[in-house]
């Protein structure tokens, strides 16, 4: 095992250093920084990029991967592009009418459901590859997304992962990911999000989430948005819990 330090530069004791870390990887700056932090700790880093109908150009995620490989020649990066269409469909549409009757438009917050499908697949992958640490590039700056919000989803997800003996971490949550990556010389500028240099897969279904947020926040406050979505995602995480037990 390598000599490893955490983000602050402190040497970590050998027993706390995982050998393998699985990183949810889109190839954007947030997940690339999470992958970089994983590479600082582990010998093997699984980078998982998900795809399904509406999510395009998954191969665009390899752009930053090449830079990571160059930067960490001794770390083994295993990149996987995984289809999770079945999982997403099951999560989003298993209780189509009851969800809609009970929660109204909230089931249209597709980005959270999509991420839940990814987490289902991730837990399965962790079991198959004997991985016990998962890194996610969730950041506070995008906390409007259910999966990037501690109250709505992250706390519940942490509990779910723990039940499967997996530590679910969001190591870049409070960081300015672009600045950090620029400091590490992995990106050409410290402001690339939304520019042509920000190369990552494209999602057409995000449009529905944006429209849902537009509508919901035009009627309710952000606090109500968070509390309503939390209620919904608690139910969905419980559903996922049952699905994982039955799998």
């Amino acid at each position, binding site marked *: 095992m390598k000599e490893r330090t955490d983000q602050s530069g402190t040497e970590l004791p050998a027993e706390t250093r995982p050998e393998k870390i699985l990183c949810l990887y889109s190839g954007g700056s947030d997940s690339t920084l999470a992958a970089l932090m994983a590479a600082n700790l582990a010998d093997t880093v699984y980078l998982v990029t998900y795809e399904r109908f509406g999510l395009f150009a998954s191969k665009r995620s390899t752009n930053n991967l090449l830079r990571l490989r160059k930067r960490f020649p001794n770390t083994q990066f295993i990149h996987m592009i995984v289809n999770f269409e079945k999982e997403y469909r099951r999560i*989003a549409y298993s209780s*189509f009418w009851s969800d809609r009757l009970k929660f109204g438009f909230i089931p249209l917050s597709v980005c959270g459901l999509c991420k839940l499908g990814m987490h289902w697949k991730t837990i399965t992958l962790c079991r198959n590859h004997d991985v016990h640490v998962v890194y996610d590039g969730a950041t506070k700056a995008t906390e409007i997304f259910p999966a990037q919000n501690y109250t709505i989803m992250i706390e519940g997800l942490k509990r779910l992962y723990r039940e499967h003996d997996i530590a679910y971490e969001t190591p870049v949550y409070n960081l300015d990911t672009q600045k950090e990556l620029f400091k590490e010389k992995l990106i050409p500028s410290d402001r690339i999000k939304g520019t042509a240099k920000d190369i990552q897969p494209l999602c*057409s*279904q995000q*449009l*529905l989430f944006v429209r849902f947020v537009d509508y919901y926040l*035009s*009627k309710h406050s952000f606090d109500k948005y968070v509390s309503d979505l939390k209620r919904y995602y608690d139910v969905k995480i419980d559903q996922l819990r049952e699905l994982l037990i039955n799998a």
Partner: protein
Amino acid sequence: MHKRVFLILIAVVIAANILHGFVAALVFRKRKDRAGDNRLSYEEIKRRRKALNSLAICGICFLLPYRVREFFVLTLHFLINSMKAKLLLLVNLLSSLLEKTTALLVYFIGLPMAIFCEKLMSKDTKFVENSVEQSDVTKRY
């Protein structure tokens, strides 16, 4: 004939816009902005119109089954984004064309004209300086 059709089309678009704004203002009449104010302004109407569009899209997607909804959103995504991108590209192209034309005009016409005028002015000045009108004798009267 064509002129009349064109005018009718413009009138329909204006009427549709007014109706859209009116319905949006009515549907979201209880909406308050960040300052807690629900008075109508142009910006507020624009926000309400956006919210109404979102409500319409959400309403359609609410009822659609899985694959149909995915296709619907996908089509919408390409319609909105590619049109927006094309318009932006067109605006960029036009502005760059305008910029280059202006630069060319200035360089090939404006600049030689300025030089020519300057030369002409200096000749005039010399002429004026040496002319009888500007001589010390005439200046007095």
